[in-house]
């Protein structure tokens, strides 16, 4: 569902029920706004206004000296965006982020669906234990988890290379190897997020009527065919929803490389959000950083739009 579609749907169902039969009075407006005011004021000041300001900042050379007098920042037109086009670090960060999304999202969703399906139809006991166990990493702090994984992946004193050594394999320096650093971060992201996909898929699976599976099995369908011809089509809206929100979440990759690699080695794990942070708060090029942020915003919007269109029409 795109945002405008949601808006249409919700305003259509927002039939005024409370004061049906009464005349519209100014008191109704007063009451409505009184209920809305606390949220709306904070919303405008700390969310809506900053989104607009960020857009304006991206056309300025805002820097540290402008912090005390924000309106005095110099307009530079499209210069920030032009500079971005020829900024190799920006392109590297974009490429890394796309790599993370393109590899990470399908693996996360496939494993989440596999586990949800096993919990739903494969077993009868200990479901809660498995459900809670697989979900645990989702609720934990990414920073803490990244610190733990950095230690797990440590080439000298880490658990993973210790286990490999016991099999006679000399483990690599996972996070220091330019070819292995991003796959390591993807592995951690999959580990942390597959539980969320599992929970949502499980809810979708449980809503599929058992009669459909019975009908399929009367028609001679095996387990694989039931999954292909009953589960997948019925789960389509849920898969679409999960693809979109997981992609949008993964596009904002930040904490994992920040803690585990600092963006290295050789910028191979530098993400777009991390580059924005560096430009904005390490170098204090806040105008330029705003342009980076807006590029990410546009990518997020396009991806959400395309995925809805594409996934909807290939039925």
């Amino acid at each position, binding site marked *: 569902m795109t945002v405008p579609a949601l808006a249409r749907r919700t305003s259509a169902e*927002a039939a005024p029920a409370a004061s049906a039969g009464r005349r519209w009075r100014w008191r109704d407006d007063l009451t*409505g706004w009184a209920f809305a005011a606390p949220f709306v004021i904070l*919303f405008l000041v700390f969310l809506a206004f900053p989104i607009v300001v960020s857009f304006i900042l991206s056309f300025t050379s805002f820097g540290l000296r402008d912090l005390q007098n924000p309106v005095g920042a110099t307009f530079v037109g499209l210069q920030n965006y032009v500079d971005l086009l020829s900024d190799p670090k920006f392109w590297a960060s974009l490429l890394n982020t796309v790599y993370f999304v393109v590899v990470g999202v399908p693996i996360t969703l496939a494993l989440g669906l596999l586990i949800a399906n096993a919990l739903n139809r494969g077993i009868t006991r200990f479901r809660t234990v498995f459900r809670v166990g697989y979900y645990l990493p989702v609720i934990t702090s990414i920073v803490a988890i990244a610190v733990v994984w950095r230690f797990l992946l440590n080439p000298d004193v880490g658990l993973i290379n210790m286990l490999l050594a016991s099999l006679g394999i000399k483990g690599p320096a996972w996070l220091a190897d330019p070819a292995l650093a991003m796959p390591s971060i993807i592995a951690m992201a999959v580990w942390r997020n597959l539980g969320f996909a599992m929970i949502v898929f499980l809810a979708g699976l449980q*809503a599929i009527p058992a009669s459909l599976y019975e009908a399929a099995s009367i028609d001679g369908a095996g387990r694989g065919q039931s999954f292909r011809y009953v589960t997948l089509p019925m789960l389509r809206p849920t898969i679409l929803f999960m693809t979109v929100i997981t992609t949008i979440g993964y596009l904002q990759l930040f904490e994992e490389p920040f803690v585990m690699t*600092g963006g290295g080695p050789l910028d191979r794990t530098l993400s777009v959000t991390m580059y924005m942070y560096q430009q904005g708060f390490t170098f204090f090029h806040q105008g330029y950083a705003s342009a980076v942020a807006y590029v990410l915003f546009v990518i997020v919007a396009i991806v959400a739009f395309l995925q809805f269109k594409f996934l909807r029409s290939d039925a």
Partner: protein
Amino acid sequence: MTAIPAPTRVPAPRKGAGDHVANSSRRRSSPWVYIALTGGLVLMIGPFLWMVLGSLKPEADFLRTPPTFLPSTITTDNYGRLFDQLDFPRYFFNSAVIAFAVTAGTILFCPMLGYALAKLRWHGKGLIMGLVLATLMVPAGITLIPNFILMSNLGLVNTYPGLILPFLVGPFGVFLMRQFMYGVPNELLEAARMDGANEFRVFWSVVMPIATPVLATLAILTFLGSWNSFLYPFVMAQEPQMYTLPVALATFATGQYQADHGMLMAGSVLIVVPVLIVFVLFQRWITEGIATTGLKG
């Protein structure tokens, strides 16, 4: 993954009358499925065990090659250093204050707006609804720099209000509550109004009590989101006395303490274990709330 912007609810088919929940009662469950799931579970739990065991290891264990899974002797030195050399009680307190304040504000302001959107008639309702909807998928990074500039000029960098206020305006809470408010029967509200209750009375004494389960879900998810949040507090808390737990841990883990594995594991335990306890106690509310709303902590 950072907190995900999520549309109102998961568009899954609803359980209706006559539909039987698909389950495996008619199928033989294969032992291989249990074995595979258990293997996966070990992979999920393993890093947590490694973290806890690491936090109890003496310094000598981290110099040993090959490393060992279990500590040679159990020590609480690592925790001691968090409390003596570093100010982790302070960071814990900061995280708790911020998370409680954010949660309290969210479970008051979101149902208020949700109620107004679902049950009241007022000019501007459609506009507000559209505005809130339009911000659903906006990446968190967009507002970071403007909010930093705003807070600098308001003198709110390194203060609790600076760390709390922007987190009170998540659009998801509004969705969750608005969705719930639609389900509240109008007869119930009318009856209270007939008895002479004004709209605030109706909201506070009639609507809020029946919203308790959904408020609990919203409260837990909001608390977790605040407790775990990093990028924004990292930018806004620049003085050590305002650090939250994740800010402190990330600062030490990427700075002067990056090789002190024992202390970093102990710091991770302090962040993760309270959350795991809350989760195991309230897991029904959390997982069901997430499954029906697509909301994420």
